[in-house]
């Protein structure tokens, strides 16, 4: 199985080579005429002012928090899904309890994420 991962890595490596080739071809063929208006940031024609990075991005933070926990949950569900015959009914009940416990923070976070004024 590790050799399969090596093949995946090789495919990715070939893609790196191919995309570098495309970029280099573009760098060779394309004209290079730098001038000032081309190189400032794009702000629909206005002259940009202020820093590029800002901190108004907290609005949907709750969804991102949920993602971390439910990603772990989905991986454990995969661990269960491939061995479902071997664990039978008791394993199924354990997983139902697992999912049920994790539905509580889902409901909590969805309720609070909908209240936009507190973020």
């Amino acid at each position: 199985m590790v050799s399969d991962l090596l093949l995946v890595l090789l495919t990715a490596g070939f893609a790196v080579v191919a995309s570098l080739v495309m970029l280099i071809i573009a760098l060779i063929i394309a004209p290079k005429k730098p001038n000032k208006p081309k190189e400032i940031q794009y702000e629909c024609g206005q002259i940009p002012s202020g820093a590029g990075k800002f901190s108004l991005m907290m609005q949907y933070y709750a969804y991102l928090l949920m993602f971390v926990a439910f990603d772990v949950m989905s991986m454990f569900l995969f661990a269960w899904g491939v061995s479902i015959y071997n664990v039978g009914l008791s394993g199924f009940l354990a997983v139902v309890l697992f999912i049920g416990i994790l539905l509580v923070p889902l409901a909590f976070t969805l309720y609070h994420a909908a209240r936009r004024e507190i973020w």
Partner: protein
Amino acid sequence: MVDVTFAVLAAITVISAIVALEAKEVVYGAIALALCFVGIAGFFALLDAVFLAMFQLTVYVGAIAVLILFTVMLVRREHWLKVKEGVHRVAGVLVAIVVALGLGYLVYASTLTHVTPSVGQAPFTLIGVQILSDYWLALIALALVLASAVIGAVVLAKLERD
């Protein structure tokens, strides 16, 4: 005789961990942390635990590194404190080197000097079987910890305090 793959992976992991701690621009550090997690996933793959390597990639790189990167991007530069370094930094590095040498000596002096892959690889279906039959209580405890983490994080992150 040291294995080339192991050496390269170890170099990538350790160097990106050092960069993650020492980089002046914190976003570079977060990206180096993601690279460090990829290196650790490579170690899991070298130990024939491929399921675990995919788990590591999906959860650590896909969720945790992304969350760390996003959070680091939110912090404005003016709010960072400047820490006075100096003798503490040198002392820290010395302590780390001494601990590493001590652990290395312990490992070499024990009977653990040579790892023989004995069984090949265990089928990963055993992971699910063991989690759900022998250690199901740990699974439920994990669910409770995750639930409390999410609820706590949401409560801490929102603006009102009631």
